[in-house]
Every structure is written in structure tokens, then in C-alpha cells.
């Protein structure tokens, strides 16, 4: 067999999911764009920027500390996609934005995203090259920099959307202590509890990707979300059938997954 033993089911599952997602992307391109349920954290962005404008204080944004490759790349890209919406809202309101970056490779993308957002709003004269700031590649040096910055600049809103590790609680707690309205989201399950405890709005897990698709209004991304939903239904169907069959002593479905 040309597929390694133990990976046959995974391989066919991957192919099936790819076909389903491709089909929904095609449908979406043809105009059948799926409607995605509202995400509270995303709706709160306007409120956060409005509050910062009224208070005359900046909005701090970070697309996380993940790189552009590896398992967390999707979160970083989702963070950058939503940054575009935040920057456009800020350009419209004339508020101040501070974006902090940990990964050097993310810096040019974040700069480009913010600049394009200001251009799209016809407010390029408001764009400040110091908006996007690279702090440090060292995780806790970056965190220390963000803490100091939040306090000194007295940010009115703190938006954390991307991949986060142990610094998540430190940053979110500092935002909370200065009274900033906080919107956070990550697909790293171990960090969501900290955001849930310290932030006003939390995008849990995949909500981050859905929010990114909503922000982009890109039919490919929206179609992909619809395709993934079918994947979830398949997964639920498999696990419920498998559990019921196991209960009556039939284990062929479980064995199928091991192949």
C-alpha cells in the first residue's frame, strides 16, 4: 500500500475535506456567499475605537506573537486581517493607533496593512510611520515593552487578536488595570481562559478565523468557513455513530479510523 499504515483514513478524510471546502469556495465565488453568525468581539471594535476617540487616547493592537509559518501562522494572518478593519475604523474616526510586533517577518505586513487601510479611507495624511512598532523577538521582553507602553500611552482600548503564549495574561491584566476596553481572541486553547478572565470580549478559538473571514469579505474565505462547517458535521456524525456503536459492542467504525 502506498499510504502508510495508520494514516489511510486520515488521508481520505483530508481529501474529502479539501473537496468539500473547494466546492463551497466555488459556490461562494459564484455568488452564493454564506452568512456567518455575528461575532460579539468583532462588533465591539467600533465601540472600542469610538471610546478611544472620545477619550483622546490611543488604541493598542497586536496580531499576536506567532510567526508566519507553522501551526500559528493562520492566527497571525487572521490578526492582520482584522487589523485592517481596526485601522480603517481608526482612520475614519481620526483616532490614534499603536500596533506592537514581536516577529520581524510580521512587521512589513502589518505596516502594509495599516498603510493600505489609511489609504482606503482617504486619510493617508493621518498615517504615522511609527504606528507599527517592532519591540523585541524575545517573548517576555516584548511583553515588558507592551506593559510599559500601555501604561505610558494610557491606551483606551487594547485589542489582542492572534497567537499568544504565556504573556497573554500579563498583557490582558495590564489592559484591565488601566481601564482599557479589551477585545481578545486566539485559537490557542491554553490562553483563552486568561482572556476570558481579563477581557471584555473574547473570540474563542475558531471565532478568530471566522471574524477574519467576515472582515475580509473575501468569498474564498467565507466559502472556506462554510466548507469547514460541513467538516464539523461529519466529525460530529462520526463520533456520535462511533459512540453508539461502541455502546452496543460494535467497533468497526473505531477500527476504520485506526487504518
Amino acid at each position: 500500500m502506498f499510504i502508510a499504515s495508520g494514516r489511510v483514513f486520515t488521508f481520505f478524510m483530508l481529501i474529502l475535506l479539501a473537496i468539500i471546502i473547494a466546492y463551497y469556495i466555488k459556490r461562494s465565488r459564484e455568488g452564493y456567499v454564506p452568512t456567518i453568525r455575528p461575532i460579539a468581539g468583532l462588533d465591539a471594535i467600533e465601540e472600542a475605537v469610538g471610546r478611544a476617540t472620545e477619550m483622546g487616547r490611543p488604541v493598542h493592537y497586536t496580531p499576536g506573537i506567532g510567526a508566519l509559518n507553522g501551526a500559528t501562522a493562520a492566527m497571525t494572518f487572521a490578526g492582520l486581517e482584522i487589523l485592517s478593519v481596526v485601522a480603517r475604523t481608526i482612520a475614519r474616526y481620526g483616532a490614534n493607533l499603536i500596533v506592537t510586533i514581536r516577529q520581524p517577518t510580521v512587521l512589513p505586513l502589518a505596516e502594509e496593512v495599516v498603510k493600505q487601510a489609511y489609504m482606503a479611507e482617504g486619510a493617508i495624511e493621518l498615517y504615522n510611520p511609527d504606528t507599527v512598532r517592532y519591540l523585541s523577538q524575545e517573548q517576555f521582553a516584548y511583553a515588558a515593552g507592551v506593559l510599559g507602553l500601555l501604561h505610558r500611552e494610557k491606551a483606551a482600548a487594547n485589542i489582542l487578536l492572534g497567537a499568544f503564549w504565556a504573556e497573554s495574561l500579563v498583557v490582558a491584566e495590564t489592559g484591565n488595570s488601566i481601564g482599557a476596553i479589551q477585545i481578545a481572541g486566539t485559537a490557542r486553547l491554553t490562553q483563552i481562559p486568561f482572556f476570558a478572565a481579563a477581557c471584555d470580549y473574547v473570540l474563542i478559538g475558531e471565532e478568530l478565523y471566522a471574524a477574519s473571514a467576515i472582515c475580509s469579505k473575501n468569498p474564498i474565505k467565507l466559502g472556506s468557513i462554510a466548507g469547514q462547517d460541513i467538516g464539523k458535521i461529519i466529525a460530529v456524525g462520526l463520533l456520535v455513530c462511533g459512540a453508539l456503536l461502541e455502546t452496543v459492542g460494535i467497533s468497526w467504525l473505531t477500527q476504520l479510523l485506526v487504518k
Partner: protein
Amino acid sequence: MLGTVGTWLAAIGTLAMMSFAWRENPFYRAFEHIYIGIGAGHATVMGWQNIQSNLIRPLQVDRHFLSLVPLVLGLLLYTRFIKGQAYLSRYPIAVLVGVGTGLTLRGTVGSQLVEQVKATMIPLNNINNIILVLGTTATVLFFYFTAKKSNKAMGVTSKIGRYIMMIAFGATFGNAVMGRMSMMIGRVTFLLRDWLSIL
């Protein structure tokens, strides 16, 4: 002597960082900048060592000329500073993202879908297993984004999923607090034993 200097520096740095718990202050600010500076220095050294081990040595010793490909890609990143040529910096980023995504995809379906489903296919013969299967189902359905608002069954299921996640988050939070306390104890032990020699 060097060990003593190191201990003193580490102790002062620890106190500076801890002083943030009181408020943002010049002591913290000084060490924040020192920390960021050291981070930049460390990254530069590590970067140079990477170039030596992944480019210079393979080229000089092994005559491994394929190492020139990442060199060219790396240099292309700097074209964003050249007016009119900035578009070239997108190619190395595209390679980085493409390779990274491909490698990630290889393990994702197996570890995050098939293995999870397999682990939940358990007989519903005790309350623990029933909670596990129902909880997993409800949580997965919470992330069903294209459901219509009028679908009440989906609404109820996703609400149950949300509550189950909150319980899980609470447990994770408690666990992490214990971990952080242990780190705090480690730091205080360092200050009292290694620095002040009280313990």
C-alpha cells in the same frame, strides 16, 4: 566574582520587573528598555550563528550550493527598503507561508480531527463517557458558524457548548494560576536564598 555580579544583576532585574505590580515606575522602565535591548542583542547573535551554521559552513566545507537559495530569499526581504522594488520582498514571505502551511497541514487533520474523533468514540455506559460525548458534540457545534438564527436546536446546543467550554477554561485557569504561583515561589526563593542568603 562573575557569579556574584550575575546574581546581583538578576536580583535587581527581578525586583525591577516585580515593581510593576505596584505601578509603572522609572526603575521598571529602565529595566524594560534594558531587557528589550538585551533581546535585540541576543537575536542578532543568534541570527549570525544561524547564518554561520546554515550558510557559511555548508558553503565552505560541504560545497552545498543549495544553501544559496535561502540566502537569496533572505536578501529579497530587504528589498522593501528599495523604492519601486518592494514587491520583491513578498516572494520570500510567500515561500515562508507556503512551506509552513504545507508542513502544518500534514499533521493537522490527523491530530486535531481524526485522533480527537477517535478518542471520543467511547461506549456510553457511564456518566463520565456520556458527559464527554455530549460535551464534545455541543462544543464542536458551538463553532458551526453558518447556522441560521431561526435554528433553535443549534442555538441551544451551542449554548451548552459555551457553558462546557467555560467550565474547561475555569479548570485550565486554576491550573495555570498554580503554575504561576510555582514560578513566583521560584523567584522569591532565588531572592532570599541565592541573593540574600536568608534561606
